[in-house]
């Protein structure tokens, strides 16, 4: 790819095959190399073996295996054992899973979950449908957490300077150390945690701090617990359902943080429009980094992170908010000058029905401005409420950690308890935490892994995974959520609350006992009510009901309205945002492994990151214009220098990044993560400072001349510029609802040579709403978890051999220097009516079922790959090697027992979660009733926070999927081929502001022929 290629293509709009939408710059340039890449579905010697064995060796092996083939078929099945219970628990039915409500924490906040449990093994996590923070959906971390539970690299033993010790020995030693602190009132004791919202843990902590008043509790979390330019005094909770106009100021509210699931649910409810007349919301996104929230924006402006403050000031002025104490905003860019007055007018026109959202990476001044605007616009109480911060720990982690480091360097710290987290790896470089650690007398680390921090501590205690733990946590809206263990600790893990109780003089108390006792005490005085608003009859009734539901309904601040903290004082609107000179570095946690805490999770490593679709690596994103300026192309290595510190990273040109910005994802470059996550990627923590954790100006880059191979799935399985997405403008759609169907051509049903299939019973179908999908990728993670899909590794991904059955294609529109639109398209098997795959299989391993599925029969497949060659959607995946792990015993326990583990040489693909269909059908038949609409949810549908995916029976005219398929927005992908896909899409409708005519791009293009 060269810039000249792209420019020449863009300069000639008459190019007959010029795509309106493009997935990658390579596609846009359409070089010979790219055409070759697309032509070979599995490119780059994909047909050959990976190992250096040559042709001769291959023929020898083939000869031998052919000779053995006949014989091996005659081997007897190995003996299988049946191990019944001694005393079977009453509720356990072998073959049927049980579901338990629990919660995981992200930045201390509870993420409600339902855990599927097969005979004591948690195998799959879903959202808790009744919990306000989930409403049934999860994010990618919720889906992938179950793999971390079984991670064989988790820490298994309690250690003292490398020697194995017991828990009793540890607590005794710790109490001995602490007894010297009692006289000092704990002056030498410091506790470092991640943000904490757990009421029972806070109580233990307060008990300890009351007994030892000089001890201090610090907080550090590189992702959630740190702010730049001060912490906002109030936490906003948004009601996106009520908002017609949303202005996001560097706020990825759908993609980042524990509130993202609920916010996506609410926001997308205004995108899943039923009729052309339905009013859709409108999103303005002002952001330095292309985010999944930004892909949903009607008007997206890429700006430097530091400029957001000035834009907020200008916007405040435009909506009539006085900003005493703040200087005049800097001059805005030309584009921003055009957008800002229109945006302000839109806000003023929708007072009480709009909301200004400030992102967590912006300074307190931007939050104060957003709040002032929301108050002036009358939005408070309708689209947003403000509450006091929900976490008990300091909001500014960097400042808290700096205090700790100062004490450590002053040799004031005798005992440091690091309860969770990996500060040695993640702490700001200017604090020199590692160096400071050497001045501490006794260092104790509690963590899931024997990681970089554990290595430098005296004591290391293996932490229990949340699926092995008793506990509680508040969700982002304050709702108290209970954690209950799904399995006994696999590796002798312990919990923070247990450790604190030991320090509080109760070393023997179990976490179950501590949590239960805490809530027994509260239930009497708490005045809690259940979801129906009823008080609980007794403490026991409260405990049982709460454990069953997973949360206390009456603790949500969203529902009850909140006690609003005082308005920010004058002067809160000003903030130093740094120099505008040079390049700006924007730091962000990696979208899938965060700050490295999920580095050893193969599912998250291989989950393509939104927009760039990179796997197994972190990169520096630059804009197309910046890349041109510095003559950079994908995979080039650069030295990024900021304040005299340098990190070497590969470049990825991501359209939509702000010019003059280098977006750096941290979380890679770990050395002690485990066999999956160690020694991959690059570590930008070496240039991230406590002062500027999210953005810093004045940086410079130098191309080193080296390259680093990256594995991006963006160009894999491309559909050769056939423009598979359809986008219309809301006004055009309202005027002519048929506009979407006119964009394509549907051949006559009777054109097929094959007789049509008849469906007497169910006829399964799926509808995917592209207007709601924001491309977060949780469908992929859910599918991997449900269907036992293996991880293949970076080398194999580079060869297009990733196994995920559903992918999310991202399409950009317009000039790569400033794309006017970004669209996401989840793509599972389309279950075609005239399936091209079925007719070419020589062994009938893929056949049409009587309910319309394209069945895939693994045990019959001989691996010719003809089906995959013939599939126009490129949704089939082939096991080129033995990707499934048949040997690691820990991982065996994770697998879904209802889905076959595929071996080498077998084709596989999505079958609409046929195991769930079969279960529902059998239950319906046993109950002598029809299968109810909505009874079967595919894994991707269940996890999707945007509710973009709907599955159901097309033979039932009352089903939700039938109604969606009858909508005007409905179209089939590549339906001009006559394959008659059964999964259909609902087109994107964008609702741009008519006052910005040049931005209106949609509704004019056609695709197909």
């Amino acid at each position, binding site marked *: 790819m060269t810039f000249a290629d792209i420019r020449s293509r863009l300069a000639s709009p008459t190019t007959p095959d010029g795509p309106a939408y493009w997935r990658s710059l390579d596609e846009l340039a359409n070089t010979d190399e790219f055409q070759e890449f697309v032509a070979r579905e599995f490119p780059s010697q994909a047909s050959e073996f990976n190992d250096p064995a040559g042709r001769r060796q291959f023929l020898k092996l083939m000869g031998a295996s052919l000779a053995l083939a*006949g014989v091996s*078929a*005659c081997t*007897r*099945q190995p*003996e*299988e*054992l*049946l*191990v*019944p*219970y*001694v*005393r*079977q628990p009453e509720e356990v*039915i*072998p*073959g*049927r899973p049980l579901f338990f409500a629990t919660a995981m924490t992200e930045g201390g906040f509870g993420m409600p979950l339902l855990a599927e449990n097969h005979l004591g093994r948690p195998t799959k996590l879903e959202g808790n449908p009744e919990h306000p923070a989930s409403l049934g959906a999860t994010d990618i971390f919720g889906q992938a957490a179950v793999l971390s539970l079984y991670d064989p690299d988790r820490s298994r033993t309690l250690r003292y300077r490398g020697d194995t010790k017991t828990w009793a020995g540890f607590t005794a030693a710790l109490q001995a150390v602490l007894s010297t602190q009692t006289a000092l009132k704990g002056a030498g004791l410091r506790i470092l945690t991640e943000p904490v919202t757990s009421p029972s843990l806070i109580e233990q902590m307060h008990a300890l701090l009351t007994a030892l008043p000089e001890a201090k509790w610090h907080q550090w979390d590189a992702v959630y617990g740190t702010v730049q330019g001060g912490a906002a005094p109030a936490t906003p909770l948004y009601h996106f359902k009520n908002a017609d106009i949303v202005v996001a100021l560097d706020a990825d509210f759908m993609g980042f943080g524990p509130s993202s699931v609920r916010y996506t649910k609410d926001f997308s409810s205004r995108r899943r429009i039923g009729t052309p007349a339905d009013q859709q919301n409108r999103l303005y996104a002002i952001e330095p980094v292309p985010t999944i929230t930004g892909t949903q924006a009607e008007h997206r402006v890429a700006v430097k992170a530091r400029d957001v403050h000035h834009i907020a000031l200008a916007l405040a002025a435009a909506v009539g908010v006085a900003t005493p104490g703040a200087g005049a905003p800097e001059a805005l860019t030309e584009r921003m000058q055009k957008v800002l007055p229109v945006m302000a007018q839109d806000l003023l026109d929708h007072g009480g029905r709009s909301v200004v959202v400030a992102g967590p990476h912006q300074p307190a001044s931007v939050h104060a401005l957003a709040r002032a605007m929301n108050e002036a616009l009358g939005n408070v109480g309708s689209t947003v409420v403000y509450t006091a911060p929900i976490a008990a720990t300091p909001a500014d982690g960097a400042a808290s950690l700096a205090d700790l480091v100062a004490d450590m360097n002053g040799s004031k710290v005798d005992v440091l308890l690091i309860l969770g987290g990996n500060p040695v790896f993640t702490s700001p470089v200017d604090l020199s935490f590692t160096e400071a650690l050497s001045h501490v007398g006794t260092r104790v680390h509690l963590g899931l892994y024997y990681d970089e921090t554990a290595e430098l501590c005296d004591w290391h205690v293996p932490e229990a995974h949340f699926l092995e733990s008793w506990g509680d946590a508040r969700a982002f809206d304050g709702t108290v959520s209970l954690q209950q263990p799904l399995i006994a600790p696999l590796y002798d893990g312990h919990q923070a609350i247990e450790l604190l109780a030991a320090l509080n003089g109760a070393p023997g108390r179990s976490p179950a006992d501590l949590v239960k006792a805490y809530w027994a005490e509260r239930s009497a005085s708490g005045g809690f009510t259940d979801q129906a608003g009823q008080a609980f009859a007794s403490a026991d009734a409260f405990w049982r009901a709460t454990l069953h539901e997973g949360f206390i309904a009456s603790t949500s601040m969203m529902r009850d309205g909140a006690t609003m903290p005082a308005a920010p004082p004058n002067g809160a609107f000003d903030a130093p945002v740094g120099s505008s000179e040079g390049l700006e570095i924007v730091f962000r946690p990696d979208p899938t492994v965060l700050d490295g805490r999920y580095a050893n999770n193969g599912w998250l490593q291989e989950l393509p990151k939104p927009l760039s679709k990179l796997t197994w690596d972190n990169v520096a994103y630059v804009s197309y214009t910046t890349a041109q300026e510095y003559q950079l192309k994908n995979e080039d290595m650069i030295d990024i220098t900021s304040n005299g510190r340098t990190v070497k990273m590969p470049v990825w040109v991501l359209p939509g990044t702000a010019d003059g910005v280098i977006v750096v994802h941290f979380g890679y470059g770990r050395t002690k993560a485990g066999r999956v996550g160690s020694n991959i990627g690059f570590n930008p923590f070496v240039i991230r400072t406590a002062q500027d954790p999210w953005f810093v100006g004045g940086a410079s880059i130098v191309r080193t001349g080296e390259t680093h191979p990256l594995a991006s799935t963006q160009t894999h399985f491309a559909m050769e510029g056939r423009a598979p997405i359809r986008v219309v403008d809301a006004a055009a759609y309202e005027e002519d609802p048929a506009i979407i169907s006119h964009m394509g051509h549907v051949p006559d049903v009777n054109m097929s040579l094959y007789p049509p299939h008849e469906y*007497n*019973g169910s006829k399964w179908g799926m509808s995917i709403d592209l207007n709601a999908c924001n491309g977060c990728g949780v469908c992929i993670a859910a599918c991997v978890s449900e269907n036992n899909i293996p991880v293949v590794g970076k080398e194999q991904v580079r060869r297009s051999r990733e196994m995920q059955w559903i992918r999310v294609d991202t399409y950009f529109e317009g000039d790569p220097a400033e794309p006017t639109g970004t669209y996401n398209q989840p793509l599972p098997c389309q279950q075609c009516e005239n399936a091209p795959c079925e007719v070419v299989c020589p062994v009938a391993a893929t*056949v049409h*079922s*009587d*309910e319309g*599925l394209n*069945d895939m*029969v*693994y*045990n*019959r497949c001989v691996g010719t790959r003809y089906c995959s060659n013939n599939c126009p959607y490129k949704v089939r995946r082939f096991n080129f090697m033995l990707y499934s792990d048949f040997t690691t015993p820990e991982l065996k326990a994770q697998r879904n027992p*209802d*889905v*076959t*583990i595929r071996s080498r040489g077998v084709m596989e693909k999505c*079958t609409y979660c*046929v*195991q769930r*269909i*079969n279960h529902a059908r*059998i239950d319906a*038949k*046993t109950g*002598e009733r029809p299968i109810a609409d909505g009874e079967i949810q595919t894994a991707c549908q269940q996890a999707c926070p945007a509710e973009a995916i709907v599955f159901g029976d097309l033979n039932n005219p009352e089903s939700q999927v039938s109604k969606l398929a009858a909508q005007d927005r409905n179209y089939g992908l590549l339906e001009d081929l006559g394959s008659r896909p059964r999964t259909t899409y609902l087109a994107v409708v964008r609702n741009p502001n008519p006052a910005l005519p040049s931005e209106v791009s949609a509704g004019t293009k056609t695709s197909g022929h």
Partner: protein
Amino acid sequence: MSQIFRKSANAAARSSLFGVLTLVLFLGWVIFTLMRSSWVTKQNEFVTQPLQFSHAHHVGGVGLDCRYCHTTVEKSSFAGIPPTKTCINCHAQIWTNAPLLEPVRASFRDDTPLTWIRVNDLPDFVYFNHQIHVKQGVGCATCHGPVDKMPLMYQAESLQMEWCIACHRAPEKFLRPRAEVFNMAYEAPANQLELGMALKTEYNVADERHLTSCSVCHR
């Protein structure tokens, strides 16, 4: 130099042509027969279990219903193997000191499960479901054979796909009234086909197209 081959070698060469053909056919027959043999299928093969449990005694003799032990057969894919507690329900009262039952008592005492060898074992890519077969009128004995006459358990049928599919193609040949599913002594009436067709309609048994769809059993 004399001829290497004598004239009679011609005859040998000609006959070897037939020989090769015969050999190929023979090998085919061997594989075909071997695949269906009870050596491969383990049909009618007694399995030595850690405990000599007799279905003949408990079902045929004592007259226990199948569901006394296999409790989940009507509500789950898996029929269920009884926990030791089920054995102890009775054997805390009778045969309390029988040496034969020591493994059962030891299991209950030490809280260690009994370990059985699976007799009717399908390949892992086959997802058989007891619940629906029992519901639709497939008798236990239809697949498991005369369990009430088995002192030691053996696999009564081949459990090969051609055997499964024979019934999935024409379930009417095997269906019985729901009330008779657990009856070991049930014998198919003379008008089985007629009865089967009537039951098929009454029980809303799926048609052949559905029952022979791959994903019904494989996924």
